[in-house]
């Protein structure tokens, strides 16, 4: 028989290859990733593991800065070096083997030490979306961090020693429209229904419907009707307390039809309505954190250089103050619920239409601002996306890594507080810092040759750090001993774990989706523990 030949669009090669991740960040997230340019300083095992998970999903390009020569130890723990790489430049070798992973990615290797680039060609770093570095000296860390802070390029500093690892994200300001929360609070407006919604809700008469229709009323309608009935005895109020919500549940219970024996019939939609009472009767309001964005100086003092996020915030503020009557634009998303096709689709369209109308108003305001400022245009789709997620906008205000090295009051007392708790993960942070200090003083890792011999020396580094933050010395030397045991060893699986995490965070920064770590992550592979600190 002749095969049917549907003429529906076939997927492109690229869509097929990236299918599993496009389901997580969408085509627009992929486009952002493909225009990203990641710089890695030092192609250690940790460095190449990071690049692996950025190159596979198809970042635009990578640049490796590394002036080291490949050693036997490098080959032993780094998958992107081979035996024949020994004696060659580590960055070029790693680049060659990493680019094999994805021909769509461009790559460059720079065989210069990073401090030399900083000194002679600081503009080199300007073009990167994110700079990621491992195994830097204390001095270079501070100089690089300060420079990247000044030119506003995100920086991720990572470490992997023995079973311990860490990464620290430095970013001045990071705004996210799509945070992808696990549980999105529905935006139903039952307390303040817009005209089309209240017309629709009022068109129902639950008591008059035949049994089949009765079982297909969307729970939103049921909830609304129950509240209306409740308001007869509670005029001008809204059910807030547990007691009041229980009264609503009882009213819903009374709506349920009974069989000839007076036993309630099992109606799924009414069960859903009762379950929704606790979560869906939250009054519509402007979330405090969103209000803060709208009235922050970034949104009120716009310039030609203002990022689109803040221009849209400004337009949104104007919407909230005027057309929105103090509320954000309707999100336009209806949760799934038992209902007839007709009821569900009608209700969904009511919300969608209102959302489109609200977004349209915001878009017009954005256009006005853009033409006043003579700045780059913002697409209608971008504004729609912004309005759709207006309830979950997110702003991360970061801090400079240099403050961790200066150990001024806020950082020092933050660390001290965690050490006193006592939080062993903060002890690990101190140990990583102390090992770094040891390296600066002795030009090698603590315990590199003989673990016992370095314990005293490392202990003095720890003491220095602890006295800088006005903390008493550690009661025991066990963590110092353990760090000396590691002897600066890079353990592949520890680096691979961190590499996955760092790549993941870099992708979040480039795609501007999902919330990144704010701002320091510590991993202890020995105890399988992780922690996040905000310096």
């Amino acid at each position, binding site marked *: 028989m002749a095969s049917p030949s549907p003429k529906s669009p076939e997927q492109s090669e690229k*869509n097929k290859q990236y299918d599993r991740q496009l389901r997580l960040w969408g085509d627009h997230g992929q486009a952002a990733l493909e225009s990203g340019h990641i710089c890695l300083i030092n192609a250690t095992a940790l460095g190449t593991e990071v690049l692996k998970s950025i190159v596979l999903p198809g970042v635009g390009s990578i640049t490796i800065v590394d002036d080291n020569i490949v050693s036997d130890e490098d080959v032993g723990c780094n998958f992107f070096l081979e035996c024949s790489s020994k004696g060659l430049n580590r960055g070029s070798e790693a680049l060659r083997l990493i680019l094999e992973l994805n021909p769509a990615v461009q790559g460059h290797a720079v065989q210069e030490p990073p401090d030399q680039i900083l000194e002679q060609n600081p503009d080199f770093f300007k073009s990167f979306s994110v700079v990621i570095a491992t195994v830097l000296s204390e001095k270079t860390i501070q100089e690089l961090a300060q420079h990247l802070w000044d030119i506003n390029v995100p920086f991720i500093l990572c470490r992997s020693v023995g079973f311990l690892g860490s990464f620290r994200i430095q970013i001045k300001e990071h705004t996210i429209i799509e945070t992808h929360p696990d549980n999105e609070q529905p935006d139903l407006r039952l307390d303040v229904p817009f005209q089309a919604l209240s017309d629709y809700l009022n068109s129902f008469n639950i008591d008059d419907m035949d049994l089949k229709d009765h079982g297909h009323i969307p729970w939103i309608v049921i909830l609304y009707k129950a509240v209306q009935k409740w308001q007869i005895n509670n005029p001008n109020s809204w059910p807030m307390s547990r007691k009041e919500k229980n009264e609503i549940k009882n009213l819903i219970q009374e709506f349920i039809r009974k069989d000839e024996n007076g036993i309630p019939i099992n109606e799924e939609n009414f069960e859903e309505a009762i379950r929704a009472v606790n979560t869906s009767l939250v009054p519509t309001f402007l979330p405090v954190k969103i209000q803060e964005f709208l009235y922050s100086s970034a949104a009120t003092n716009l310039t030609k250089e203002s990022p689109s996020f803040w221009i849209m915030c400004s337009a949104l503020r104007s919407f909230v103050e005027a057309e929105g009557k103090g509320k954000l634009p309707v999100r336009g998303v209806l949760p799934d619920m038992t209902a007839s096709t007709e009821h569900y689709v009608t209700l969904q369209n009511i919300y969608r239409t209102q959302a489109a109308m609200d977004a349209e108003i915001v878009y017009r305001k954005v256009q006005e601002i853009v033409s006043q400022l003579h700045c780059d245009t913002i697409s209608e789709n971008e504004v729609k996306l912004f309005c759709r997620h207006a309830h979950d906008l997110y702003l991360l205000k970061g801090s400079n890594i240099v403050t961790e090295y200066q150990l001024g009051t806020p950082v020092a007392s933050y660390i001290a507080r965690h050490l006193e708790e006592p939080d062993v993960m903060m002890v690990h942070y101190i140990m990583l810092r102390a090992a770094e200090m040891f390296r600066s003083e002795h030009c090698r890792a603590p315990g590199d040759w003989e673990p016992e011999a370095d314990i005293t020396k490392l202990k003095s580094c720890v003491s220095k750090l602890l006295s800088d933050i006005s903390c008493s010395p550690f009661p025991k030397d066990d963590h110092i001993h353990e760090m000396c045991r590691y002897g600066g060893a890079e353990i592949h699986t520890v680096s691979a774990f961190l590499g996955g995490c760092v790549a*993941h965070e870099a992708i979040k920064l480039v795609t501007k989706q999902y919330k990144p770590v704010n701002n320091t992550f510590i991993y202890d592979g020995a105890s399988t*523990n992780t922690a996040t600190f905000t310096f």
Partner: protein
Amino acid sequence: MASGEIQTSDYQQRRWQNIRKLLERSGPFCHPDFEPSAEILDFIMNSCKVLVVGAGGLGCELLKDLALMGFKKIHIVDMDTIELSNLNRQFLFRKNDIGSSKAKCAVEFVNKRIPGCEAVAHHCAIQDLDDGFYRQFHIVVCGLDSIVARRWLNGMLMSLLQYNDDRSLDQSSVIPLVDGGTEGFKGNARVILPGMSACIECTLDLYPPQKTFPLCTIANTPRLPEHCIEYVKVLQWAKENPWGETTQLDGDDPQHVAWVLEKAQERALKHGIANVTYRLTQGVLKNIIPAVASTNAAIAAACATEVFKLASSCCINMNNYMVLNMADGVYSYTFPAERRLDCVACSNTTRVMEIEADATLQMIYDKLCEDQAFLMKSPGITTVINGRNKTLYMSSIKSIEERTRDNLKKKITELGLYNGCDILVADITTPNTITIKLKFAENLDVDMAR
């Protein structure tokens, strides 16, 4: 030549320098039984046999991770071949490899990249390998996306357990299982010591219930684009058989997906439902789980670290289940999942099923499928009456299904079952037949009052 040998051994010493620091030095946080020595690395390299189950997103990472932690005697089993959609994370494969065996391709790559690695590929289903095969390994690490396959493997390792005369566990029969899984930006890693800590069957409730759509919704009151796609998949395909009666719907055939998409869009249009897309259609047809390189890398690395700890005893293993969520920051939580003392897989006891005396066989069947303790897929039920095997119900073989179908409606007492008798249950979720003892509840009222 002697000098050459010395050179090689020097080179080996330097090459494994990083790991040797962990294995040849003692530390304050080591496992109490740990005694640092050069022999541990020798054991890892030359004796310790590790089986990696699955050569997909986790499997590729695991193979690389283990090889770089010194393991040489690695076996990897996977029945799948490479597809284009694997390449965004399964980093041992290239476009040229599409269509080849995942296990073979992965092994070839790693053995070439890491000299001395002697990984062996098995391009077959895990069910094709017998207990003799599984018994040869010191540690099994599993990176599967199928819960059924994971349960089967778990059952296999549990079935290898031996018990001493005093019913205590024979420790030498224990093969530790390290298990990892990911879904999008979330994942988990766990360590299972068969017979000693919680196994997969002990913790079935940790798996989210499968998302299914009721047939009446699909047929009569569709609301979501998924409902329209399910309608075409479940009802319309079988009715129209667009490629003839013998052709099953194949989610990997773009022609089939396009046909379903077109029909689903027609249905959606009729009902005013929006957003039936190619991507969604394929997602529903193949039950696609989103996946990304980074999450797989992190979970596989966590698993490989645990394998290294098991092989070297250099520190204590995680206790025993870690969840990792990378969607909002990076967050992990490790907790001790608890054993079920009456676990069908890992306890040395017979499971008891409580059932009313006037129940039908269907009720037992439903209980086996729905009860959190069993969650079976298509259990075949037999019993022994007067020393003879009797098949009560079996759906896997068509002729037997037809012959035994009527039994489902019969009362269990009519079928010869009695209070305290054993039924034997076989299912795809386990390699072994499970014995379940029936216990009749006194009557319904007593049960409800409880």
